[in-house]
């Protein structure tokens, strides 16, 4: 007779699930409200989403408190893993989402925001990302990955333009391929070690001294390909510019930050132990990935004629830049990754929001895409404040001190120097210099060219409302005054990373 399985509720530690459950409840609530009374205004759903994200945020503060007192917490049959990485990345995910959601309050009406499903899907997606980062179980990672990705494909498609459908389908196809690779990789690791938990895999592999290195490498190849798609590393980046172009600018900004930090965390959990246990091959491949991604994406960005596509390539390049942190794999570099991404999310969300408020519903004849460089010519003469803020974001992205991203670059390059990756440090620096050109190009258009005929400057803020302006102002202030918050931020991040053993 089989013993009944007795699990006390206390040992499950269900509190570890709280941050993920909150957005799920929020999403369900939105759906329920819609069932009872349809046709409600988007403002209601924006505020509900914001409220639930705020609750999510306070739950995170709770778990951060628990972590800083008692260290890593496991829960729910040891599937959930709440360590410093999980908490930090969830903070980024939730804060970036809180900055993103008010962008729905545009001046013009856009199709997607009139559906409550948009917001429900959005919250489901957040929960998916949170699951992804708060576990080291490959199956739960997969579940989180798919939940979030499927929601994200739909959100892209809801923008309801020809290019949006193309983008969504492209994203979906690529994402499906990535998911396939991921499950293959996970399968190989399971076959090798009999476990789907990363720390178990590490232990078993270390115990038999990487005897089956050939199989490990096969698993790693699949995993690399899968994360290559998710992180848009060259040569798996091809979807990125098209998807960014097809999605709304706000959604593109969101996509450049939140999904990537989730993927970074999983990549960090998986690749770090492999690099540290001397899988030289992985180190070389990652090195090549990092260098090629940074450089090639930079060069493609040089030749773009559309600002949004330029920013898409620049995001790819930034992802490559940050991937270097995983390659270096020291506590300092991992802290640098989070620092960089926090600062990057401010600046990048800000610059995509600037594109978003200048979004026209109908393009004039001479304009071939939504945000051509020409559209911004002479912007300083008609709307100087908007031009200055956009210029500020561009300078920050280029890494001009003392704006936000400079400090991220500084710390990341310093971690490369400290770990002995001198050549990598120089490659990173040279790439920053190359990227200076295309950010400068927009500044040149805005500040040094004459405006096009018939452009009275209204277009730059045509979509602006108080909510959007506050988000942009918030991002701008964060970009300028980052150096004040730097020290507490750095200490907080380093403590969390260090205590999680990375």
């Amino acid at each position, binding site marked *: 007779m089989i013993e009944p399985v007795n699990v006390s509720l206390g040992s499950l530690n269900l509190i570890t699930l709280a941050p993920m459950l909150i957005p799920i409840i929020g999403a369900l609530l939105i759906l329920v409200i819609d069932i009872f009374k349809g046709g409600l205004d988007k403002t209601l759903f924006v505020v509900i989403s914001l409220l639930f994200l705020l609750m999510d945020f306070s739950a995170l503060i709770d778990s951060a408190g628990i972590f800083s007192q008692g260290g890593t917490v496991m829960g729910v049959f040891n599937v959930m893993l709440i360590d410093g990485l999980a908490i930090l990345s969830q903070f980024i995910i939730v804060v970036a989402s809180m900055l993103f959601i008010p962008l729905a309050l545009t001046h013009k009406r856009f199709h997607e925001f009139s559906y409550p499903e948009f917001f429900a899907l959005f919250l489901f997606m957040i929960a998916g990302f949170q699951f992804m980062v708060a576990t080291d179980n490959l199956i739960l990672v997969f579940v989180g990955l798919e939940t979030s990705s499927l929601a994200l494909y739909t959100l892209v498609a809801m923008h309801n333009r020809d290019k949006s459908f193309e983008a969504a389908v492209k994203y979906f196809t690529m994402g499906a391929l990535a998911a396939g690779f991921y499950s293959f990789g996970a399968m190989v690791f399971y076959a090798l070690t009999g476990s789907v938990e990363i720390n178990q895999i590490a232990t078993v592999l270390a115990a038999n001294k990487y005897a089956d290195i050939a199989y490990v490498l096969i698993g790693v190849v699949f995993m690399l390909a899968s994360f290559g798609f998710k992180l848009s590393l060259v040569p798996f980046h091809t979807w990125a510019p098209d998807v960014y172009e097809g999605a709304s600018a706000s959604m593109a900004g969101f996509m450049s930050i939140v999904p990537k930090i989730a993927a970074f965390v999983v990549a960090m959990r998986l690749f770090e132990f492999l690099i540290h246990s001397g899988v030289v091959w992985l180190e070389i491949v990652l090195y090549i990935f990092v260098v090629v991604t940074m450089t090639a994406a930079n060069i493609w960005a040089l030749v773009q004629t559309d600002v949004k596509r330029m920013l898409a390539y620049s995001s790819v390049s930034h992802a490559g830049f940050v991937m270097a942190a995983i390659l270096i794999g020291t506590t300092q570099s991992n802290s640098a990754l989070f620092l960089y991404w926090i600062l990057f999310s401010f600046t990048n969300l800000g610059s995509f929001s600037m594109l978003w408020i200048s979004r026209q519903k109908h393009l004039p004849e001479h304009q071939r895409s939504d945000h051509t460089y020409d559209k911004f010519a002479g912007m300083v003469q008609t709307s100087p404040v908007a031009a200055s803020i956009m210029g500020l974001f561009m300078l920050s992205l280029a890494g001009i001190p003392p704006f936000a991203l400079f400090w991220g670059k500084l710390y990341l390059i310093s971690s490369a120097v400290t770990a002995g990756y001198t050549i990598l440090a120089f490659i990173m620096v040279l790439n920053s210099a190359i990227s*200076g*050109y295309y950010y400068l190009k927009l500044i*040149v258009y805005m500040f040094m060219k004459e405006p096009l005929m018939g452009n009275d400057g209204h277009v730059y803020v045509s979509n602006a409302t108080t909510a959007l302006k506050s988000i942009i102002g918030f991002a701008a202030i964060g970009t300028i005054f980052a150096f004040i918050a730097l020290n507490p931020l*750095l200490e907080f991040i380093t403590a969390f990373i260090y205590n999680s053993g990375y």
Partner: protein
Amino acid sequence: MIDHILSILIFFPALAAMLGFIIHKDSIRAYGVAIATIEFALSLWLWFLFDSNVSGMQFMEQLPLVPSFGINYILGVDGISLFIVILASFFTMIGLASLTDTKNIKNMIITLLFLQMTMVGVFVALDAIVFYVFWELSLVPMLYIIGAWGGPLRIYASVKFFLYTFTGSLVMLVGMLFMAYYYYQATGTWSFAILEWYRLILPEAFQLWLFVAFFIGFAIKVPMFPFHTWLPYAHGQAPTIGSVILAAILLKMGTYAFIRFSLPMFPDASVFFMFPIAILAIIMIIYTAMVAYAQEDIKQVVAYSSVSHMGVIILGTFALNVEGITGSIFLMIAHGVVSGALFLLVGVIYDRRHTKMMSEFGGLAHVMPRYATIFGLMLMASVGMPLTINFVGEFLSLLGFYKQSHILTILAGTAIIVGAIYMLTAYKKMFFGNVTNEENRNLPDVSKRELLALIPLAIITVWLGIYPKPILVPINNSVASIVQLMHDKSTTEEAKKRIPNLVKGEDVKTLEKEAH
């Protein structure tokens, strides 16, 4: 207030610039001049409070910025930086006062005030990262000034200027990060404080390549010979005020940084690279002088002659003794005054005729006698005539280098004298002979506003040429302490020999030891 005078000097113009957005565009010029005058008065006050007998840093300020990574906001001024700070505030004032009518004048003045913040910041920063912040930030206003108010090729020129310097500075940044890491290895704490880096004695191999990393950043800024190609474009396209500030102050950042960073931090590497750099400097002097001779545009002549004289500054710096370095710092001031004045003078004629081609002019001495006189004076100063400000600096620089190498010094000295040819030829083409072009016959002479800017410069040129002591003494004291530091820190035989020991007693002791 005295304790924070350096912070006030840095951030007062920036704050004023931000408030400047409120001011109506018809009144903005008065506002700009007033702010720049206050700033200049503050910098004079700094000089007044400055104790010339102290060789070290004065008015130090310290505030932790990112203590866990060793970044602190440290400021301080010594004899080396004091006069460049005064020069910066002086030229901003002069530049604003003589600013002619331009479009978008409000943007221009606000940009200039921001530029002033970055210029002062670079020269008083004593933390490498703070230094780097101001160093990089200074590119942005200059980019805008060249790009928005420049000539037909302005966008190309401004972007080239920006990217060139940006790339060099990034390489320098890696050098700084390495330096901080070495400091961390040696002491266990992160620090970017320059004065703490001074105390670090590095093995020669490290010094060599760190020197190169810093050198790339500084040499592009100076600009030294193979890296100078951005400068003619920047000068050629920039508006008058842009050229004036660029030549007078921004280029000095590079030469100043050599003295602040490279020499005291890497004495052995400085000795190792002394002759290669001296040869580069001499090539720079001769080559740019020849290029200047071939120019048809008077502004390009002034631009290339400015580069040529920067070569003498470099030569003096790498003499690695008190005379040479003191001379090079003095020459930085002199070069600032003279080439700034020359660019202003070119601006005067450009405002009247909207051309800078020398072939368009001729016989201007008849039409504009006062203009011709001031131009002549500045030109004489530029070629280093005795009793003018440049002579003092050039003489000391060459004297310093004469102790290191006779042949190179003679070569450089000859090149400077030959350099007089192109300036005099240019002067002859423009001012002597008959008035060949009818358009020039009725040009108005220098106006009151222009005189307001030019007369003080002329006075300084002659005054400091005759009596340079008030400036030379503080410079000399600070330089002596740096040279002594270099001597003490150097590890190789060659360096000990090349860098003089200023403490006389020790020489005797070592001799005695050898005798025993």
